[in-house]
């Protein structure tokens, strides 16, 4: 690993306002490119981080735009690790379900609940952990390719 990579971490604190999601995506994309992640992987990881931020805004903060999101991007020799943390309501139990995306039947077509299965599909490991001081952290890991 290059020496400079050891300092290649990002910590972003931003208001929980959906208008900033585009900027968060740009930053995550630039960071992944700096980490020399393959282009097709960059697209899906950007999507999954966006989903985690959107979930925090919609569920933990119930749409409130004046709270804070903290996004941490960390690289070590084995993994890229992404954390999205909020200080909102505990995430509902269905968040914890380790369920891959399901192919819906004609009568079971629902417009919600798509984000978490999508995150699980993209990362090698997704963990939802409550924070002792209140709030949640979603920790997502991606194994580095050799």
């Amino acid at each position, binding site marked *: 690993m290059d020496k400079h990579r050891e300092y290649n971490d990002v910590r972003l604190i931003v208001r929980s306002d959906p208008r900033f999601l585009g900027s968060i995506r740009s930053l995550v994309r630039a960071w992944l490119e700096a980490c020399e992640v393959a282009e097709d992987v960059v697209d*899906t990881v950007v999507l999954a981080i966006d989903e985690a931020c959107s979930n925090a805004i919609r569920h933990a903060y119930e749409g409130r735009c004046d709270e804070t999101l903290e996004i941490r991007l960390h690289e070590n020799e084995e993994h890229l690790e992404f954390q999205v943390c909020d200080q909102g309501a505990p995430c509902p139990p269905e968040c914890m379900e380790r369920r891959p*995306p399901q*192919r819906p039947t004609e009568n079971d*077509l*629902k*417009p919600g609940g798509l984000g978490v299965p999508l995150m699980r599909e993209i990362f090698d490991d997704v963990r939802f952990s409550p924070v002792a001081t209140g709030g949640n952290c979603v920790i997502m890991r991606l194994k580095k390719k050799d």
Partner: protein
Amino acid sequence: MALTIEESKSGEETVVGVLGEVDLYTSPQLRTAILKAVPAADGGVAVDLSGVGYIDSSGVATLVEGLRSARKHGKTFTLVAPSRAVLQVLELTRLDQVFEVR
């Protein structure tokens, strides 16, 4: 960064053209446009997604709502020329076989 949504007529069909990035910030704008177009359409609604550079699950959920509304109103609902970003998210959410695509 707002979405640009343009509505036009093509025979019996109402075409909703979408240009930009669809996320939690912009999907309400798309939702309003689609849920207004569906009941007002003569035959059906075609959503042109060729200009969508990014879409998240809230955008895909909006398309699902449009499809459900179209079924309720007896209209057709078609996705036209979905961009690579759209196809990727439809596959990831396992909704790629739900929509009529052309």
